[in-house]
C-alpha cells in the first residue's frame, strides 16, 4: 500500500547559559577590557595554556602563574571554508586557522582575515585584531590578520 510519510516538525530552542568559570573569566575580562591575551602555566610541565585551564590535564595539578602574552602568533594550519553554517555568521569564504600565540604551548582556533585566501600560508605571522564592541567572548578577538612588513 502506498502511504504518505507524515512527519512532525520540532520547535525546540533551548537558551543555555554556560558559565565560563573564574579561570576562563579572567582571560575574557582581559580581552574585553584591555585587549590583552593572557595564558596560564602548569607548574610541572611548564605548558602555557591559551585559553587558560584551571588544571593541567596531563600532570593533573592546578595551573599556577598567569603570563601576559603578545597578541601575535603563527599560523599552524588553516582551511578556507566555502559552506554556510549557522554558528559563524560571516561572509563566505571564511578562513579558519590554528593560531599558536607567541609563548603559548597549544594553538587557538580562530578566524584569519584582512587577507586573500590564496595568500595564507602555514607558518605565516599574524596579529590579533580586536572587535570594536567587546562583550567578554572569544569573539572579542575579531580575527587574526597578517603582520605587516
Amino acid at each position: 500500500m502506498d502511504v504518505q510519510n507524515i512527519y512532525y516538525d520540532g520547535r525546540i530552542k533551548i537558551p543555555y547559559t554556560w558559565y565560563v568559570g573564574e579561570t576562563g573569566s579572567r582571560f575574557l575580562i582581559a580581552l574585553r577590557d584591555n585587549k590583552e591575551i593572557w595564558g596560564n602555566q602548569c607548574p610541572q610541565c611548564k605548558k602555557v595554556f591559551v585559553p587558560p585551564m584551571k588544571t593541567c590535564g596531563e600532570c593533573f595539578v592546578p595551573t599556577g602563574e598567569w603570563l601576559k602574552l603578545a597578541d601575535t602568533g603563527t599560523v599552524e594550519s588553516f582551511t578556507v571554508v566555502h559552506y554556510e553554517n549557522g554558528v559563524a555568521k560571516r561572509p563566505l569564504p571564511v578562513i579558519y586557522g590554528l593560531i599558536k600565540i607567541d609563548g603559548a604551548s597549544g594553538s587557538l582556533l580562530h578566524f584569519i582575515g584582512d587577507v586573500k585566501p590564496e595568500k595564507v600560508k602555514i607558518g605565516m605571522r599574524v596579529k590579533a585584531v580586536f572587535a570594536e564592541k567587546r562583550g567578554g567572548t572569544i569573539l572579542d578577538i575579531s580575527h587574526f590578520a597578517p603582520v605587516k612588513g
Partner: protein
Amino acid sequence: MGKKVAVVGFGQTKGRSARKDVNGVELINEAVVAALADAELTIKDIDAVVIGNMDHFEGVNYVDSWSVEGSGGVMKPIFKVTTGGTTGTTVAMSAYYHVASGMFDKVLAIGWEKNSESDTTGAIITAFDPVWERPNLGGAIAGLALEASKYMSTYGITERDGARVAVRERLHALNNPFAHLHQEWMKGIPVDQLVELLVTSKENVMLAYPLRMSDMCPRTDAAAAAIFASEDVAEKMAAVPAWVASTTNRHNFALAGDVDMDRNTTMASAAKRAFEKAGIKEPLKEIGVCELYLPYSYAGLKWMEDYGFCAYGEGPKLVWDKVTDMDGELPVNPSGGVMSSNPIGATGLIRVGEAALQIMRKAGTRQVQKDVNFAFITGFGGCYWADVMVLGKKKPS
C-alpha cells in the same frame, strides 16, 4: 582477566539518506531482528542490551527507554552509551565488558542514527566546547580540513593522494549491498582516471580546502546490532565466533587548538596498546583486514602511519601500491567504510560487525580472499578521541 568474549551474530539495515518509512524505534528493530536471525537466537536468549546514538541528532534523550519495543529491551537490563563519533565502537566495548565481567552471557549491542531528522553540522558542533570553540568552528568538515592541511604541508602530500583513498572506499562500497553510497558511474573506469576526475571536476565542490565533496562521508540513516557471547556459549552459537582479542580507547584534549595536527596521538597510543594485548608484533603482516573509522580521505593516509602500518609520510605509497585494496596485503574497509555510509551512532558498530563477518567468512560479495586471523577496528570522535578493537579467529589464551 575476565571471560573470553566473541561476536556471534550481526545485523544491519541498508544505509539511506532518509528512511522516511520508519521511525527510529522501527529502524532499530530491523537491525535487531537481523542480528538475532544471524545468530539463530530469539530475544528471550538475550540477557542485557547496550544501545547508543548521538542524542542531538534526533533530539530524543531517553533512547534506552524510548526504543524498548524496537530493541527488545522490555524488562531487561539496558545501558545507553553516547560518545559522539565513537558511539558504535563504545557500544561494542561496553557489550564486551558486560560479558567479560561474567555477569551476562549474551549481550545485544545496538547502534543507530537517523541523521535525516536534524542538522548534522549543527548537532556535531555540540561536541565542541560551548565557550571556547563553538563560536568559531565550522563543524566537522573545517576541523578535519585543518588536519589535512597541516599533514599535506609537513609531508608534501597532494590532493591526488587524498582522492586515491576516496576512490578505494567508493569502489569497495559497490560490493556492499548495505552501503549508502553506490557510485555506479565509477564501475570500469581505471583508478588513475577516477582520481584525476575527482581533483579536477567542478561538480566536485570544494567545501573547505583541501576537502571536496568526495573527500567526506555522507550523512546516513541506518541501524546495526551485534551479539556478544561468553566463552561458555559462543562456540555453540557460531561456527566461527569472532573473538575479542583486545580493546581500548584514548582521549587527550578537549580543545581542537591543542590537538597535535601532525600526528593522531590517540589512535597511535590506542592501536599500540591493543596490538600488544592481542600479541600482534607486525601489524601489517599479522592483521588480515581492517574496518577503520575514516571519516574523510586524508585519514586513510595519515592515520595508517599512526597505526604503525608504514612510516610517517608513507601513507600515500601504501595506498597507491594497492596494499589496502581488496586483494592487497592489508585490505582496508571492504565495506566501503565511513566515507560510504555514516549513520553516526551505528558507524562504529558497523566496523565491528563487518570485521566479524570477515573472520566468520560471511561477508558475501565483499569477503576478502585471504585468510583473516586478526581484524583491526577503529572508532573516531569529535576532538580526536579514539576507540580500537582487535577481533581474532582464534580464542584468546
